[in-house]
């Protein structure tokens, strides 16, 4: 089956609509969307599952703008950077124009990002083909350190990552195959199921959070989404504006792709950087929104470059996707390009279809669906999510023991979330932790525990230097933050 098969195309379409709905409704997140979808996708084979996943991830970030337009609440954190401006545009011009202003720049940003994804991933893979376990060790360490250092409090990052990696040590160890921390429980010999953990961390903890704090119910837009205004406002006016701002589109796309490429950055930061740059230049609300939405969608493709080529996730979403790749028996990195070359082409193609066709054409349709769905109380949706978490966790392995893990990990996820610990780093620990251990142990067994061997190959030495340079640079920057944080509140203001 290929990505152009009817099943895969249908999965792409439905995944896009599903991602758009979850991305658009404030309170439902892209990570929750994927967590609930994965138990279903696992049954459908790699091509169909990956098509749906690309549909979900590529549209969820764009759809965050739909919430901004309709209810002045960003559907995803990546849209928060320019929600005020986009909603203002919807009020002053029309919701259809604001949606067009979101859909077309998002599509262009995503397409330009895709261009870099193709060129960048192929270039990086060519480099990565020369990597041995030594280089991979340093590379994985770079991904881990950049993730931990990117969060505001390093100790919280270290705890979140440490807990994730500790959870991943349960079961047979990757180098020698000894069982660890299984407490005589046969269900733990294969390790904690990544997908069950994902459902617990992002699904159950979300429901528990709503239970404690209640749900802020967004009300459907009073502004009408008249079909009559679609052609003029959504297509003509929005595209005319995009043409006028073509250089901004290009600039924001390049910026977004670059920020997305950086480990630990992602769409949120891309949107903030790009829209703030336009604000600093006294940009009008339309321009600020355009720059922000272009950048955050370009960042999605940017984050896929190191994920596909090196197996390094740039943000939480790509970390989840990498886990999904592994669950489907596909190892990202050069092996993906060597063994599954056609799959790589199909991933590019799916990205293209979502960006060029589904995003601009489906954007308005999604908004109409979302405007109707917003009438369903969030409390009802969260109740349904709890039921789906239970069935999702069970369906992965048909193992009732996984439901116990769901309860325990759901409780842990809730505690971490309430304490402001980054859940994305727990996922990163579960994905990259075993790889770090595997590459280290393989290197050590090859060289009879000669630690200096990590510095003997030129590429390994360069990557080791990059690790040190990044730690020094980030800690240097943070010293400035620390000094600012230690100032009394009045001086800070």
């Amino acid at each position: 089956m290929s990505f152009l098969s009817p099943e895969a195309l249908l999965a792409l379409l439905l995944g896009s609509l599903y991602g758009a709905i979850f991305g658009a409704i404030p309170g439902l997140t892209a990570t929750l969307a994927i967590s609930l979808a994965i138990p279903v996708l696992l049954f459908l084979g790699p091509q169909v599952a990956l098509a749906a996943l690309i549909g979900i991830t590529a549209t969820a970030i764009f759809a965050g703008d739909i919430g901004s337009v309709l209810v002045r609440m960003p559907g995803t954190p990546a849209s928060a950077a320019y929600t005020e401006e986009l909603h203002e545009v919807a009020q002053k011009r029309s919701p259809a124009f604001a949606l067009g202003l979101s859909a077309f720049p998002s599509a262009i940003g995503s397409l330009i990002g895709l261009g870099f994804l193709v060129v960048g991933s192929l270039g990086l893979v060519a480099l990565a083909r020369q990597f041995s376990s030594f280089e991979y060790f340093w590379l994985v360490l770079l991904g881990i350190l950049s993730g931990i250092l990117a969060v505001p409090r390093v100790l919280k990052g270290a705890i979140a990552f440490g807990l994730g990696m500790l959870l991943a040590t349960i079961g047979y160890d990757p180098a020698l195959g000894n069982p660890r921390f299984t407490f005589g429980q046969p269900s733990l010999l294969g390790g904690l199921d990544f997908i069950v953990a994902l459902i617990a961390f992002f699904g159950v903890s979300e429901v528990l959070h709503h239970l404690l704090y209640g749900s802020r119910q967004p009300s459907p837009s009073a502004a009408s989404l008249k079909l009559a205004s679609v052609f003029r406002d959504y297509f003509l006016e929005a595209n005319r504006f995009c043409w006028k701002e073509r250089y901004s589109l290009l600039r924001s796309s390049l910026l977004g792709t670059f920020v997305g490429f950086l480990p630990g950055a992602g769409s949120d930061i891309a949107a903030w950087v790009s829209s703030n740059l336009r604000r600093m230049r006294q940009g009008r609300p339309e321009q600020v929104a355009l720059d922000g939405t272009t950048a955050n969608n370009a960042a999605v493709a940017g984050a896929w470059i190191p994920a596909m080529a090196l197996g390094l996730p740039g943000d939480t979403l790509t970390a989840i996707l990498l886990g999904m790749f592994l669950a489907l028996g596909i190892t990202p990195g050069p092996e993906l390009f060597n063994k599954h070359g056609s799959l790589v082409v199909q991933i590019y193609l799916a990205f293209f279809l979502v960006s060029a066709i589904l995003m601009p054409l489906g954007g308005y349709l999604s908004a109409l669906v979302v405007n109707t769905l917003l009438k369903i109380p969030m409390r009802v949706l969260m109740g349904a999510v709890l039921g789906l978490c239970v069935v999702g966790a069970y369906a992965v392995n048909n193992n009732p023991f996984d439901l116990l893990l769901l309860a325990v990990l759901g409780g842990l996820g809730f505690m971490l979330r309430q304490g402001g610990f980054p859940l994305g780093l727990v996922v990163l620990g579960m994905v990259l932790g075993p790889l770090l251990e595997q590459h280290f142990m393989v290197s050590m067994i090859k060289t009879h525990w000669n630690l200096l061997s990590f510095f003997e190959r030129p590429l390994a030495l360069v990557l080791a230097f990059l690790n040190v340079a990044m730690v020094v640079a980030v800690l240097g920057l943070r010293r400035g933050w620390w000094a600012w944080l230690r100032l009394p509140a009045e001086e800070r203001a």
Partner: protein
Amino acid sequence: MPAERFWERAVALVALALGMLALYLSRSLPQMEGGYPGPALFPSILGVVLVASGLGLLWQERGSKGGLEGGEGRVLLVILGLALAPWLLGQIKLAPTAGLYALAGALLLGVRPAGALLTGGAVALLVYLVFQRFLGVQG
């Protein structure tokens, strides 16, 4: 935010406890030939990281006030309820179990009984049609 402070400390204590447990349990793991560290190496490193980070966070948070929101009882109820899911699954099968959790969740979230019943019914039907009939999940 007093609640965040409370949960920060709670997680720091969990990290401390799990770190110590990892260090303790790692001692019983086998070594490699030649006395080199084997499967115990990374869990031991993680144990040290978790203990040190947990202590560091507790030290940073000393003196700050923390408290609960008041409503955590319902959260605990849901977690304990989820722990009962394997038993429930054996008693009433998959679709009704999912429906029951949706119903209970909706009720606890403040949905009226009729609405909660509708939510539970809709989820049970969805699970039956999608997971059991279409995907062939047993249960």
